[in-house]
Structures are given as structure tokens and as C-alpha cells.
């Protein structure tokens, strides 16, 4: 694209720069807005942003190139991204995508000749209980079928703006199937804050300690310890961040919490802010949940009006706190807390070296607490109702309840809240799992559980989970499930460290090789060694866990791959004779030397 194609670009963008105070920290937010205006990031915009933010052009391009939802090439006025999570695949998304492309004469990944639209796939959009799903210009489409795609094709042909499309296409349901104390009991906005102010910060921190609350994002670190370490760290400013970058395929509980329990989450953030001494908080909202932005802004505005955010909260002089929403742009890695902080600072989402940990050196190198959405909702409840009440639920090491997002082969997919310690079998019975054969607990980075292990319990002592639970019935091709995970990690690796960047690619190639009937016993050995290198040598959790699905498959489900293996000790990775076909056609040769056995 030449700059002269957008002669007005500077005038168009200056108001955006002004709104963000020309801060380099807001680079990602600015790029998101540019993407929404032009449907891609023109080269002229990059030059313009670099000049106005006073940063090198390479930095702007580096950030723009990192995030999946920012496109450096024109992607058409309408960009449709089909979710390629395994549940969407099982619900028929690949066939729907082919149908749609065929109907509109499109090729996946390429823009139509009239520059009207493009179709591609994207990582899990968090609509597993109401898929197959897709995004159109960032807005979620649910329950796709042929009829809906026909309608969408018509809307695009008529060039109807996405905001004027029928709302039923965008309907997102909560599907809460089982509510416990967190989801079932109503909360009065301000109750937890009033209790915190009455009790005092130190006493509330003691309640957190007594509650035994552990982080719900997967790692399970003690919340009281994290908060007290941050509280004790010296810094000019303290920050609290709500991690709503729910990227683990199969997880969608935070979407429901943000949609229907946003007040509780904000309240938890404010309680945390009071305890650690923060006056500023961020809610890092994953790009896929951009549709929740307006509603969340309204919740924040209501809370400001009610004196629950802003200056002198609840009349307490000096208790100033406000929340700013930061939108992600399609990067799984930003769920890792230090990558999330980098992203908040308007950079590529690359995990930092730890230590130092965010509690001492986080956002802008200041003491920062990063907590999962569900953790903050729990914290609000604990502040209101006390630590002992919370600790009475669950198991010794895992107090309270856990919200699970259940999808896959079951009659009633959706949100289920259970006290910790619940057996997997009981959950499978509740959700109406049909002849379950395997369950992926906590997404691809978690554990693939076989039927022999269905008596295991959901808790940090046994089966820890960040919330995803995907059910596979007997007869499902588990190799395809693992292949999907391998492709996911290869796509989402941030590229910073070699074991993960190269390891995830090699893993993908070998799993594909086995799935394409070229695998041998030596490939299995290769996968095991590769998995070991990735687990032990990677820079962050993504690389540490990226081999989990493959290693679980090898160990627990030999039936899923053994019939695919060739008997030989080695098989080429590709069809040797097939790879000569192009040259045979070009030269017209068909002699013996033009073939390979």
C-alpha cells in the first residue's frame, strides 16, 4: 500500500492519538482502533503512529505483526474467522467453512478479488457450548449452520454493515447449568467493599489467608501471599490487573462471569486495590470478547456513579481507585501474566524473565498483582462473607468452589460450579456425557484423562484445572484431538525461545506425519524426546505444557495411533513419488528415473 492511497490518514488518526495521550504504552489500543477503521493496518498508518508516538517504526510494525487480529495486509471489509477449536471441529466447522468458501468463490486465507471479504480460521473463540462459532470483524457468531451462513453471505453481498446484521446471529447464552455459592447467591454492589473498610485492610488480608483462596487461572498460587507480597513491595504506584485473556481452548467461564457477574469481579479488584494500595487497575479483556466492552464500560460507569469507583470510594478519604479496560488482539500467550503485562505496556506479548516477579516489578516496573477473573470474584465474596465460610467448602488444599466450562460430547454443555473435590465421573453424569472415553481437563495445556481415571477429583491435590473440561465419546479420533492441540501450540508460540518455537513446529510435523499414515516407531521416540526438551528447556509455561497432549496420548491411548504406524523403523515424512508429480507434468516425463518407489 502506498501512502497516497490514504491522503487523509493523519487527520483521521490524530484524534485517536489524542484520546490515548500519545502514550507509547497505548500502542496496542491504538493499533486496534486503526484496524477497526481500515479493516487492516496500512503501512501509512504505521509511519504516522511512529511519528506521533515518537517510537521507532520497527516497534510499531513489530507489535502489529505479533497479534493475530491485527492484519498488515488488507483482509477485506468483512473478515470472517472460523473458530478451529476441537469442539468447533467436532460440531462441523471445517465443513461449514468449506461450504461458505465454495458459496462465495473464496479461498481460505485470501481476500476476494473485489477486496470485499476474507475467510480464515482462528484459535478457540470461547463459544464451545454454543458452536460452531466464528468472528466477523471481531464480533462473535454462534450456532452456525448452513442456513445462517446463507444469510451471512446475503448480508455481505448486500454490503450491510455488521452492526446492522440481525442480533440473533450474535446471541451468546450464559448456559449456567449448575450454580454454587459463587454463581447462585446474589451480591449487592458495595457489600464487600463496605466490609473491607469496616474490617480494615490488614484484617481483610487475614480473611483471605484464612479462606485459603488459590488462583483460579491454573497455577493455584495463594492469593493472600501474592497480595501481601505486593502490599509490602515499595514502589511509586501499585497496580491490580484482572486477567480476562481467557485463551485456553475449551474455557469460557470468564466470559459468563464478565457478562453476568461483572460487578462482583470489579468489586474483587477494588478490594484488592484497597489491600495492596493501588489506585489504578486494568481489566485485560481478550480480543475475542470485544463484544462485552460496551457493557463492561457501563458497569464501570454505574459503579463510578454509585461511589464504588473513582475518588474517595464510599466516602473514605484517600481511597481512590479506577479501572481501565485494555483489549487484547488474539494472542494466547498474553494469558501468561508477564506477557500480559508486556502487552498492557503496548508491546509484543513476550514473557519476561522471572524473577523478578510482577508483585515487585510488574506494570511499568511497579508492584503489580495479576489475578484471574474468577479469583477476583471469589475474593469479593470472601471480603463480604469471611474466610472461614469459604474455607468450609472444598478440600484441604483447595478451598471453595470451581467453575467449569464443559463442552464436547455431552447433552448439556455449559457452566457448572462445584465445590473442589468433585469426582470427574459425577460431573460426566451431570452434563449427560455420552459414553465418555477421554476428557481433556484444563484444555490442551492440561491433562488428557482416560476412562480408568474418571474417579479422580477436581482439586489442586489431584486434577488441577483452570476451568476447561472437554468430553470425547468412544469412537472419537483422539489423534485428531491431539493434532488440533499441536497445531494450536505451533500457532500460538510467541517465538522467543528456541525449544518452544522450533519444538512446537517439529511436534506438529511429526503428529501430522503419523495422522497422514507415514508414522513409524522412531517417530514416537522422537516425540518423547522432543517433549522432554520442551518441558525442561522452554522459557515459559506455554512451552512447558505444549507437549502434554502428545505425551498423554502416547502413554494412555495407544489404540488411537498404533494402527496408523507403519511397521518399518523409518518412513519418509512425505510421499516421495508424489513430490515428483509437478515436475513430471511440466517435463512430460514418465520414464523409470522420473519415479521413486
Amino acid at each position, binding site marked *: 500500500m502506498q501512502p497516497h492511497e490514504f491522503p487523509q490518514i493523519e487527520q483521521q488518526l490524530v484524534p485517536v492519538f489524542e484520546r490515548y495521550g500519545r502514550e507509547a504504552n497505548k500502542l496496542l489500543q491504538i493499533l486496534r482502533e486503526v484496524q477497526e477503521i481500515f479493516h487492516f493496518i496500512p503501512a501509512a498508518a504505521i509511519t504516522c503512529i511512529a511519528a506521533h508516538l515518537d517510537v521507532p517504526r520497527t516497534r510499531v510494525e513489530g507489535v502489529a505483526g505479533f497479534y493475530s487480529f491485527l492484519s498488515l495486509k488488507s483482509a477485506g471489509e468483512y473478515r470472517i474467522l472460523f473458530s478451529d477449536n476441537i469442539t468447533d471441529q467436532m460440531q462441523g466447522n471445517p465443513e461449514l467453512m468449506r461450504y461458505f468458501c465454495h458459496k462465495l468463490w473464496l479461498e481460505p486465507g485470501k481476500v476476494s478479488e473485489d477486496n470485499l471479504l476474507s475467510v480464515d480460521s482462528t484459535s478457540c473463540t470461547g463459544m464451545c457450548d454454543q458452536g460452531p462459532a466464528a468472528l466477523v470483524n471481531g464480533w462473535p457468531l454462534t450456532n452456525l449452520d448452513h442456513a445462517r451462513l446463507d444469510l451471512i453471505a446475503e448480508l455481505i453481498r448486500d454490503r450491510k454493515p455488521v452492526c446492522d446484521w440481525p442480533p440473533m446471529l450474535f446471541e451468546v447464552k450464559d448456559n449456567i447449568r449448575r450454580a454454587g455459592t459463587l454463581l447462585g447467591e446474589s451480591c449487592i454492589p458495595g457489600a464487600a467493599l463496605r466490609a473491607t473498610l469496616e474490617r480494615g485492610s490488614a484484617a481483610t488480608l487475614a480473611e483471605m489467608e484464612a479462606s485459603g483462596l488459590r488462583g483460579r487461572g491454573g497455577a493455584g498460587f495463594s492469593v493472600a501471599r501474592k497480595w501481601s507480597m505486593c502490599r509490602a513491595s515499595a514502589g511509586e504506584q501499585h497496580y491490580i490487573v484482572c486477567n480476562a485473556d481467557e485463551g485456553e481452548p475449551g474455557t469460557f467461564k470468564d466470559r459468563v462471569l464478565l457478562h453476568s457477574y461483572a460487578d462482583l469481579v470489579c468489586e474483587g479488584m477494588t478490594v484488592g486495590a484497597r489491600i495492596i494500595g493501588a489506585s489504578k487497575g486494568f481489566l485485560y479483556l481478550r480480543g475475542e470478547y470485544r463484544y462485552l466492552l460496551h457493557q463492561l464500560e457501563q458497569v464501570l460507569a454505574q459503579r463510578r456513579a454509585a461511589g464504588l469507583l473513582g475518588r474517595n470510594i464510599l466516602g473514605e478519604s484517600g481511597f481512590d481507585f479506577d479501572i481501565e479496560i485494555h483489549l487484547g488482539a488474539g494472542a494466547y500467550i498474553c494469558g501468561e501474566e508477564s506477557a500480559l503485562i508486556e502487552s498492557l505496556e503496548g508491546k509484543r506479548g513476550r514473557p519476561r524473565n522471572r524473577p523478578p516477579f510482577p508483585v515487585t516489578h510488574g506494570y511499568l516496573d511497579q508492584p503489580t498483582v495479576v489475578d484471574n477473573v474468577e479469583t477476583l470474584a471469589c475474593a469479593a465474596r470472601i471480603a463480604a462473607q469471611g474466610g472461614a465460610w469459604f474455607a468450609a467448602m472444598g478440600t484441604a488444599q483447595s478451598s471453595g468452589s470451581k467453575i467449569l466450562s464443559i463442552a464436547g460430547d455431552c447433552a448439556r454443555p455449559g457452566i457448572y460450579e462445584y465445590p473442589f473435590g468433585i469426582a470427574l465421573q459425577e460431573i460426566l453424569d451431570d452434563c449427560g456425557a455420552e459414553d465418555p472415553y477421554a476428557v481433556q481437563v484444563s484444555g490442551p495445556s492440561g491433562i488428557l484423562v482416560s476412562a480408568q481415571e474418571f474417579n479422580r477429583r477436581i482439586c489442586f491435590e489431584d486434577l488441577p484445572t483452570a476451568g476447561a473440561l472437554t468430553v470425547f465419546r468412544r469412537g472419537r479420533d483422539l489423534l485428531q484431538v491431539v493434532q488440533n492441540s499441536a497445531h494450536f501450540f505451533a500457532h500460538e508460540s510467541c517465538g522467543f525461545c528456541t525449544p518452544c518455537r522450533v519444538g512446537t513446529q517439529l511436534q506438529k510435523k511429526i503428529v501430522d506425519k503419523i495422522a497422514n499414515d507415514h508414522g513409524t516407531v522412531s517417530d514416537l521416540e522422537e516425540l518423547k524426546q522432543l517433549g522432554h526438551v520442551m518441558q525442561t528447556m522452554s522459557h515459559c509455561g506455554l512451552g512447558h505444557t505444549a507437549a502434554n497432549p502428545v505425551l498423554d496420548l502416547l502413554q494412555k491411548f495407544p489404540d488411537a495411533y498404533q494402527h496408523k504406524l507403519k511397521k518399518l523403523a523409518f518412513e*519418509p*515424512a512425505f510421499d516421495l513419488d508424489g*513430490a515428483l508429480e509437478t*515436475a513430471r507434468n*511440466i*517435463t512430460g516425463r514418465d520414464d523409470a*528415473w522420473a519415479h521413486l518407489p
Partner: protein
Amino acid sequence: MSEQRKIRLATCSLAGCFGCHMSLLDIDEKLFDLLKIIEFDRTPFTDIKHCGPCDIGIVEGGVSNAENVHVLKEFRRNCKVLVAIGACAITGGVPALRNNIDLWDCFQEVYLYEGGLEGNQIPNDPELPLPFDKVYPVYEVVKVDYFLPGCPPSADTIWKFLTDLIEGREPKLDSAMLRYD
């Protein structure tokens, strides 16, 4: 010692530039030491055309055509230990730059367009090796036992690797030998 059977070594270059072979020659006077313990089978130095039973086979270059596969499979059949040497053998390297270009476009550019070869036709002689759609790394075609990275690996690296292997040790290269900046 002198009565002991010599280690038999074969080398070849597929889609490579012979740079790795040049680096092997770069061990200079140590070649005399090497020749006390090894003897060459097929190599560009001996001009032997086919590989016989060997202890070690060293392959330079990626796999870009049908003939490369025949050579490579002959090496694999005959060599107890097969080593992929250099960037091209390990990843496809420089020749694999053509992987982003359609093969038909390559042929047209070389044989049909003006400034190309005379005659304006695409050669189809069976004696010419038929190219693959892409250039492949060696390990995708046969099992490879060792990878010796570098473009090319330095003479010292090759010497250390070979002496380790010949003396029956697991080859170990320190980080300086694997560093290229």
C-alpha cells in the same frame, strides 16, 4: 594399532555447495592423522561412484531431486552411522529458498523466458535428475543418526566430531563450536 581395521568413511554432497567438504579439507595437516585411522569409500576425493559397506556416511546438502534420493538411500543402506552435515542437509538451507516459488514459475524463468537458455524448451532427457516440488531436509527422507550444524561447521568442529565418533565416544561439541555470531 596399525594392524587394526581402518574405519571406512563415505561422503557425498546432494543439493549443497561442497562448502562442508571444503571445511573438512580445512583440517589441513590433520588429514594425515585422519588417514592413519580411516579409509575413504565413495567421496569426491576418491571419485568412487557407488557407496559400499561403510562405518560412517557423511551427507552434505538437502534433497532436491530423484537422484538425491537414490544416493541417500544407498548411503543409508550401506553406512552404519549416517551424519547430516551443514545447514542444507539439516534444514534444506539455501537451496530451499526455492520452496516459496512455484516449480512451474522456476522452469519458465530458466528455460522459456527471454534471456533463458537457447531453444526455448523444457529439457526432458531421462538422464537429468527430476526435481521435487520442494527441497527437503535429509531427515525427512531417511533416518539420520547425527546432525552436525554450521554453514559450514568449522574444521575444528568436524575434527572433534569425527575423532569422538571414531574413538567410540558420544560426540560432544562445546558451545563455542556451535556458535556462529
